[in-house]
């Protein structure tokens, strides 16, 4: 009898899954069909769609870059780090403090500059900070954001997570929520809760796309170049270097790594440094791109990063990158049909839910690790 039951269960699962796939497929086809028809009859503006795609890719690059660190700590330390978002914010503040110090030297007190201009009206736009006018300040700040956040991540590990090494995911996750709050309100304490503009406007290239223009400015370009370079760097690190291979080995099997003689604590320390460094860089680039900084943008970004990382298959850095791009583009493309604002967030999570229903381990889950 049990074989019959099995067969019935299997059949039901198959029908349900197929139905789901069918529904999702039909939905996707309808949207694509509507898009094509709309473009032809002039309801949708091609250049507007082009702008959404570009904005989506830029946003996706930030989410993907930040997601790499989250995915790495998940696969090597086995827990979802809720403090990752606030690490991003801290990184941005550290980096922009450096940028202000270099780019605005003499224009305000050192304290004011290092704290990213807490006083209203004396900040980046007034100093004329941009990648065109003060490139050294921008790249110095980016470097400082990466290095500073890497060191901060190691410090947090030493204080909060290392004493709990060996406990499973849930206690660590709860600890990370505590760390997240501590970081967030430390940011408010040090840098104030004032949100402020950081950059002067930069020239942009307007590309003609059939019926209008898609503009990409110098900061968009900087974001693309820096994010792609960092992603390629991580890829090479994981595939080519001894440390990277050890990180992949640890994400495969920690116990075996230990009996093989891999110094697991040292690998964990590097994992925090690399993940933290990328988070800080992503935060810095996000501020460069949006031109504003505030105390909770990383925390607000974190849910989207989780969506991207889970959609891509948690534990895979390639999944994080592609998940980020998919989420970013889907969010912006959804504005063709939906009003913007919070509706784009709904789209992001809907995408995640649909992918998980059809492929529970995520797009890259179970095939590519670390």
């Amino acid at each position: 009898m049990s074989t019959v039951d099995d067969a019935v269960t299997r059949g039901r699962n198959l029908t349900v899954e197929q139905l789901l796939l069918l529904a999702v497929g039909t939905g996707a086809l309808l949207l694509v069909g509507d898009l094509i028809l709309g473009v032809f009859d002039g309801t949708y503006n091609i250049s507007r769609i082009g702008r959404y795609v570009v904005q989506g890719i830029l946003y996706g690059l930030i989410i993907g870059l930040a997601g790499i660190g989250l995915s790495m700590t998940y696969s090597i330390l086995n827990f979802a780090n809720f403090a990752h978002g606030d690490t991003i914010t801290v990184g941005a503040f550290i980096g922009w403090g450096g940028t202000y110090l270099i780019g605005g030297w003499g224009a305000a007190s050192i304290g004011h500059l290092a704290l990213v201009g807490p006083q209203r009206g004396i900040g980046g736009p007034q100093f004329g900070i941009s990648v065109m006018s003060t490139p050294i300040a921008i790249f110095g700040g980016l470097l400082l954001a990466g290095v500073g956040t890497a060191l901060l991540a190691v410090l947090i590990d030493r204080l909060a997570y290392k004493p709990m090494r060996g406990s499973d995911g849930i206690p660590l996750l709860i600890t990370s929520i505590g760390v997240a709050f501590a970081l967030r309100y430390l940011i408010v304490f040090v840098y104030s809760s004032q949100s402020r503009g950081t950059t002067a406007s930069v020239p942009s290239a307007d590309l003609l796309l059939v019926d209008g223009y898609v503009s990409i400015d110098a900061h968009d370009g900087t974001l693309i170049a820096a994010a792609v370079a960092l992603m390629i760097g991580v890829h090479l690190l994981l595939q080519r270097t001894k440390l990277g291979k050890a990180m992949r080995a640890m994400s495969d099997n920690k116990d075996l790594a230990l009996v093989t003689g891999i110094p697991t604590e040292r690998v964990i320390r590097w994992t925090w440094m690399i993940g933290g460094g990328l988070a800080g860089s992503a935060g810095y680039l996000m501020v460069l791109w949006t031109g504003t900084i505030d105390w909770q943008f990383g925390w607000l970004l974190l849910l989207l990063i989780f969506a991207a990382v889970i959609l891509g298959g948690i534990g895979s850095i390639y999944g994080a990158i592609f998940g980020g791009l998919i989420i970013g583009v889907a969010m912006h493309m959804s504005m063709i049909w939906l009003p913007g604002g919070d509706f784009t967030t709904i789209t992001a999570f809907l995408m995640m839910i649909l992918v998980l229903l059809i492929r529970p381990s995520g797009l890259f889950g179970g095939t590519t690790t670390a």
Partner: protein
Amino acid sequence: MAMLDVSGLDAGYGDLQILSDVDLEVVEDEYVVIVGPNGAGKSTAMKSVFGLTTYVGGSIEFNGENITGHSPDEIIHKGIGYVPQTENVFPSLTVQENLEMGAYILDEVPGDALEAVFDQFPILRERRDQKTGSMSGGQQQMVAMGRALMLDPDLLLLDEPSAGLAPDLVDEMFDHVDTINDNGTAVLVVEQNAKEALRRCDRGYVLVQGRNRYVDDGEALLHDEEVRQQFLGG
């Protein structure tokens, strides 16, 4: 003088003590097997040598040095290699990367050790760039052994190398263990496949309920009436 000298070892996992008063010796270049019924503590005895169990009492000496309570990474530096029974490869790494991990504690991957492993397992040379997770059980076992050989250990611990393999591969695996031993590495092997193991080894230990029951030459154990009756199925 024994290279590995375990005496009066009491050990287990957490509060659960499995081994009581176990003695174990391996001399240089020797081939020693541990056999016994399921749950006798064979694997536990081997893991204890490698510092993977909870120590209760007794002592473990290697090359005259007390290694009781040392951690696995310290023990690797002393010249002992260990191949776990299951999940003993990194599936998402290629064959060559797996082998490189075996030599992680060295600054550079020793080219001659890599060549020696490839000479012993030619199939691994052919498939050096293949992901280990996509290989057969027998081939994964070779990768696992090769990884443990990368540091050219004085003593290699093998936990049931023939477990779960197709019958025709079991013999091949035993041949590989013979070759490793012939090349000058002492081996300590835990085996389910008791008859074949005793036939090939220098000396055998029969462990029952966490205690030493018999110790003798492999051939002698194989022909011992009591051992045959109780553990080798007549």
